[in-house]
């Protein structure tokens, strides 16, 4: 950036000459064509981004013949498709499992991250930086890379195959969450904890009465990131909870829709895809501001 500002200074001698002609020109340019152009581009972008979902919704109301013949108006098979998705294939059960898993993991992760953030910011203890490094370095260890050994450990050594704790427990701890709350707490003035200590509050009272009430934005940020992440998990549930709807999540449950009849049934498959996408999309749209701020905090420093 520095060399650029040098150029600006050097060229500022003929600044006045350019300015007079530019102000009138930019006024006209700014009012009409630029904005109009942006609207057109954004309309096209929204159309292409929305198209796959519109098409999925359209197909989910049709039967196979209508889809193959490229009918552009909705069909009347929505009820039949709903029947085959929700009753025959029991997608409702998968959805309930996904909701329970996503809520429990999100809450669990948030609570554990709050506790460890509290420990890192409001305590001094020997070995703190080693422990912090131990937690932080796990950012570099995505579960996908350890998936074979993790599978072997959980399914053979712990014998948890197909259980709920096998789906939930490995994801309860979070380096990102710990780091997020550490950064957040470190920016809170220390007078707050000094005052609480003078009032005789213990660390947990301080956390629940003082820190949490002023941290809802950060908690929301972590919660929305984690909710979307857990809802969209696929590889781990696929491995650890094979077969059956009892403890399986909806992302894997969609596989059962691939073989409704002997050939693919487009309608039920698309309806299932749309239903499975609604919860995370709604949560994400409602909490987009928190989502952004969560990433912004972890990215800075």
């Amino acid at each position: 950036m520095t060399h650029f500002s040098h150029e600006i200074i050097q060229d500022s001698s003929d600044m006045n000459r350019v300015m007079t002609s530019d102000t009138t020109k930019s006024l006209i340019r700014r009012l009409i064509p630029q904005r109009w152009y942006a609207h057109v581009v954004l309309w096209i972008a929204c159309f292409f981004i929305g198209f796959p979902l519109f098409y999925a919704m359209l197909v989910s109301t049709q039967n196979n013949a209508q889809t193959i013949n490229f009918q552009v108006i909705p069909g009347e098979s929505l009820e039949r498709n709903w029947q085959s998705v929700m009753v025959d294939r029991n997608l409702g059960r998968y959805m309930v499992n996904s909701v329970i898993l996503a809520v429990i993991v999100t809450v669990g992760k948030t609570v554990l991250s709050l506790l460890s953030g509290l420990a890192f910011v409001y305590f001094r203890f020997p070995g703190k930086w080693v422990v912090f490094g131990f937690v932080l370095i796990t950012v570099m260890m995505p579960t996908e890379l350890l998936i074979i050994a993790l599978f072997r450990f959980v399914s053979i050594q712990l014998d948890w195959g197909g259980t709920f704790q096998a789906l939930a427990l490995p994801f309860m701890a979070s380096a990102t969450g710990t780091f997020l709350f550490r950064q957040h707490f470190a920016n809170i003035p220390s007078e707050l904890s000094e005052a609480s200590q003078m009032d005789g509050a213990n660390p947990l009272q301080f956390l629940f009465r003082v820190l949490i009430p002023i941290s809802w934005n950060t908690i929301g940020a972590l919660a929305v990131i984690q909710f979307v992440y857990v809802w969209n998990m696929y590889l781990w549930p696929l491995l650890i909870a094979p077969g059956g709807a009892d403890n399986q999540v909806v992302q894997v449950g969609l596989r059962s829709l691939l073989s409704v009849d002997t050939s693919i049934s487009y309608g039920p498959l698309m309806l299932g895809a749309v239903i499975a996408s609604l919860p995370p999309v709604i949560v994400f749209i409602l909490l987009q501001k928190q989502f952004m701020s969560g990433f912004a905090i972890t990215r800075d420093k």
Partner: protein
Amino acid sequence: MISTESTNIIITLIPAIIGAIYFIALFMRLNRSPIIGAIIGAGAGGIGAMVFMVPLGYCTFEPERKPIDAYFGIFLITIGVFVMLGIARSASNFLFAGRSGSLIAHQSSAGTFKGWLMPWLLLSPTLIILALFLYYPAMDTFRLSTLLARLGTSRTIFVCVDNFTRLLQPENFTLQTVLFFIIAIQLFIASQNTLKDKDSVWAQFFRLSLILSNLFFFFFVVLALLLNSSYYRVVITTFSLSTAIVIFSLIISLGIAYMAYQPIRGGNIYRTLLIWPYAISPPVAGIIFFIIFNNTGGVANHIIRFLGGDGFDWKDTTMAPLTIILASVWKALGFSILFYIAGLQNVPKDLLEAAAIDGANVWQRFVRITIPMLSPITFFLIITNISYAFFDIFGTIDFLTGGSGGTNVMIYEIYNLGIRNNDLGKSAAQSLVLFMLVVGITYLQFRTTGRRVSYGA
């Protein structure tokens, strides 16, 4: 037996000497005691050599092993020495500088609670879960990668580094050797890229040789592809798919974000309509695009035929990767748009106005101000998009192509080998190769672009 013992000692001693020389030079330049430097360097080099070799029992250098195993052993030692010397260097800087590291500096004792047990109680759930479900499997992945192991039986056979060297197809031995040296040269050049003086002749020479050796690298990779070894093809597929996803998603999202960041009417509605696919899961993206690009009932062929074309076979080797790229870009776009919009809003207006006054046109302002100001965000987005293209793509591929038609990427191959073929050792070895790639790419990113990004005016 005596000869192998002495080989092992020599193999440990040479890195120790190299480490000692490096640290003596480093410490003399920094006016520190060269003797302490020699001790630290020798220790770090020796430990670096042993870090992989002791668990393996120096098996790569046994006389009955193939030459490729010995090469791989040298490669492992090189990595270990590099890592240990790096750690020792930062540790010594830390110790000699007394206090450093912003992490510690801004932590004062003000407002901390008393008690030594409480922090450990607070941390224990997190630490136990991380140890059990991340650290233990990570260690086990290293152990498994040296074994012939199957689920269902507890019997395992130690196979040294066969799970790795088999990936390199021993029959193309000359090619292996050449590739190995090119990679070694590249690593050396990349390490030289950290030269302080960016404009010196040496730095320019190194930059040029980096480009040249990259060209050579690609040439040989293509050659390896022609010589038909299956694992190279998986690696190449992974690289080409992720490169395409990253490039398309960044360019398109920057273009859209540039239109959407300005305060226009309905800006919030546009933004919501643009970013929502982020919350769609990779498997669902796979399903929707599976139906769109279906050969019999898919809308894509309908539209192409309506426009007068013939329609494509979406399952063949040119079209299948394209559908994966489209589905992934569609899903990943929202995230990049969101961050580019935020980044564009932070580009200082006065800077753009000053440039406009100087007569810079829209394009010049975009290229010379906006893009450099966005570089930290681009950097962040490249890393997140790469990790998407390496890992999360599994769900999309599983539903869209099932790994057929030239879309078998590394994470899919790991799943196939480990779960479908029940070969845990090979699968674990490939996980480690992927891990090395991820770490390597992130490191190179930090080294090359990370230094040059502009962090605000």
